[in-house]
């Protein structure tokens, strides 16, 4: 395989396992660049990446921007507010305007599910979904996969437990699809007010008790909690959440002693996770951040690679004389 079947990366739901492996292998190969004194290679020289963010984001935007710059692409950032149909510019108008500037890639974040899918129908550029509403956040799931593969050496046959607001989390959605596609079993746990209907449709099972949910888990992913949604409290209090769903030393006693602890950030310390757990030996939260840049570099280079030089080895070889990531 030397390219993806689709021109866009809209979600894990559109990727096959071999494509996911290909992206992860590319990310491993590119990761080495991040440890060098001069963290820049030329493959995307002359290419333009537009970061179109309709929703505030510090981490994801920074990570995508760094990824593009490491590969020598020109980057432009546009922060827009999600316009409504009646006032302001419509999404389609925005798409056509940006398209007229001939970018190669549009990295897009939007508060409404499906917005990147709609954008992709109106542009020639490749669209990377950097998070759409409560739908997907594929690059986050890919960096989670990469982190787990680095630490545990495989992605099949693992028990993955995701705890928190599954309903409103695009990370959970993409993670469930990604780990399931790679052959692992995903369990979700959280207040039932934060669990989506028919989650088995995504391939996950629900366990209501956190201690049971993390039993035999190889990986525990805690998600950020937002107490209120549309004026209603989904949980009685943060305190109650921390008591029944938070990850702390006591709950971890029920988990596999080597279980990895992950969190897409930013963490509400003391709510989703006690501070000592977030900083413990098994926490790989900072590796997730580093891998985020590598995965996003891989996405850009995989989407933009010329067919004849699609092999990531070549990109690295050109600039380093054959040094590969582990």
């Amino acid at each position: 395989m030397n390219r993806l079947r689709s021109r866009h990366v809209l979600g894990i739901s559109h990727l096959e396992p071999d494509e996911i492996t290909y992206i992860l292998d590319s990310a491993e190969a590119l990761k080495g660049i991040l440890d060098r004194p001069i963290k820049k290679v030329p493959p995307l020289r002359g290419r333009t990446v537009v970061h179109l963010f309709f929703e505030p984001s510090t981490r994801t935007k920074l990570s995508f921007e760094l990824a593009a710059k490491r590969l020598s692409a020109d980057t432009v950032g546009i922060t827009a507010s999600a316009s409504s149909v009646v006032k302001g510019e419509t999404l389609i108008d925005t798409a056509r305007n940006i398209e007229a500037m001939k970018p190669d890639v549009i990295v897009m974040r939007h508060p409404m599910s499906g917005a990147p899918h709609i954008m992709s129908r109106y542009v020639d550029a490749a669209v990377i979904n950097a998070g759409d509403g409560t739908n997907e956040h594929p690059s986050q799931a890919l960096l989670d996969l990469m982190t787990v593969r680095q630490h545990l050496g495989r992605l099949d046959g693992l028990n993955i437990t995701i705890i928190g607001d599954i309903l409103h989390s695009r990370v959970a959605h993409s993670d469930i699809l990604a780990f399931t596609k790679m052959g692992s079993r995903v369990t979700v746990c959280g207040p039932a007010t934060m669990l989506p209907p028919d989650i088995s449709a995504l391939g996950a099972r629900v366990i209501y008790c956190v201690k049971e949910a993390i039993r035999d888990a190889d990986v525990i992913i805690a998600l950020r909690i937002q107490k209120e949604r549309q004026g209603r409290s989904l949980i009685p209090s943060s305190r109650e959440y921390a008591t029944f769903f938070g990850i702390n030393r006591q709950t971890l006693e029920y988990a596999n002693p080597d279980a990895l602890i992950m969190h897409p950030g930013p963490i509400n310390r003391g709510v989703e996770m006690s501070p000592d757990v977030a900083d413990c030996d098994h926490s790989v939260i900072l590796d997730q951040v580093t891998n985020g840049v590598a995965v996003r570099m891989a996405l850009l280079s995989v989407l933009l690679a010329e067919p004849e030089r699609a092999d990531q080895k070549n990109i690295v070889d050109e600039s380093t004389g054959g040094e590969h990531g582990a």
Partner: protein
Amino acid sequence: MEHNIKAGTKGGPGLLLKNGHIIDPFSNTEVDGSVLVRDGKIQEVGNPESIPEGCLVIDLQGKWIVPGLIDMHVHLREPGEEYKETIESGTRAAAAGGFTAVACMPNTNPVNDSSDTTRFILDRARDAGFARVYPVASITKGLGGDELTEFGDLLENGAVAFSDDGLPVRDAGVMRLALDYARNFNALIISHSEEPELVAGGVMNEGAVSTQLGLKGIPAAAEHIAIFRDTAIAELTGSRLHIAHVSTAGGVEIIRNAKRRGVKITAETAPHYFSLTEEAVIGYNTFAKMNPPLRTEEDRLAIIQGLRDGTLDAIATDHAPHSVLEKECEFALAMNGITGLETSLALSLELVRQAHISPMDMVRLMSTNPASILGVNGGTLKVGEVADITVIDPDFKWVVTENGFISKSHNSPFIGKEMQGRAEFVIVGGKIVQAAK
């Protein structure tokens, strides 16, 4: 073929529809024969012995002659949103779809909550000269949900029923007042039944597909609760209630039970609820966004069963035209609704072809029952009745295309679909308002 389209109207030489297959649910007859129309009325049914001189004779070669189809739930958008549809374009689209009459909902701007607006709609419809229009006035002033409109005055000026469609009547107490007051006039209340606190910003059916797409769902329970509430109030008041656009299996069951108890309710569903499921939304297809939303296969089959066993009385389109701008956007921002007038007949004929319902059932659901529920003319081919007639070619094959719509809007999830069956002639008061090319 050039016809004297007014041959069957007052003072004309007459119009003979010859060699047809006559289906009249009102008299429960289905025979081969001819229908003679004169002076805007049905003069003879069967095989007329003498044909008036100069009479226009059309040989139908076995096509169906049925009482004019009536769509009891459409949105014509005028006054106020003429960029989506006008009374002229909407009634032309209705005729193209085989309808001789439509009942239009009051959620216009201004709202049809006064006799002025009702008369304006009727004037416009008369000027247009295509399908008849029966205005439905709002239950509450300005669709505000609290103060009743002047039912008596509105009825005297041509309104045929009352509905706050687009919105449910949120307050059960107001719904009770409306149903109580309606008894004075034997008026019909049409309910858009959904519990808004459970809809709560939902944009499609709640279930596996909404989870897959990360879209906020509307549970079927939102419809169940509201239909149950409204039937319970109708039972309490003994008034006539009609439930609009039933979309769920549970809704059908609640109505079936209420009818069994003798509650005076009737109900309709729309072609999209028996033709499509929530899967049509996949890909964030805004043309499949409507309210109530497309449901599951189980619901779809229950809707068909409801049409078969008479729990559901009518097929109505909930024709809801929207401009491209209101549909080519983020799914959550897209407006609810699809255009339905021009695809309804072919989709309903599909139920006949699949042997779910008979041709007679279909005509009952699309003509006879809507006429009797609304208390308007038509719905039968009885001699002496007004000559509102639809001639159907059940076999004609065609494809739905964006540019093929007569309606000003083309927000249809059926674009690209192959259809079978169309209206060959549509006759309103003896006048041929639509002749298929």
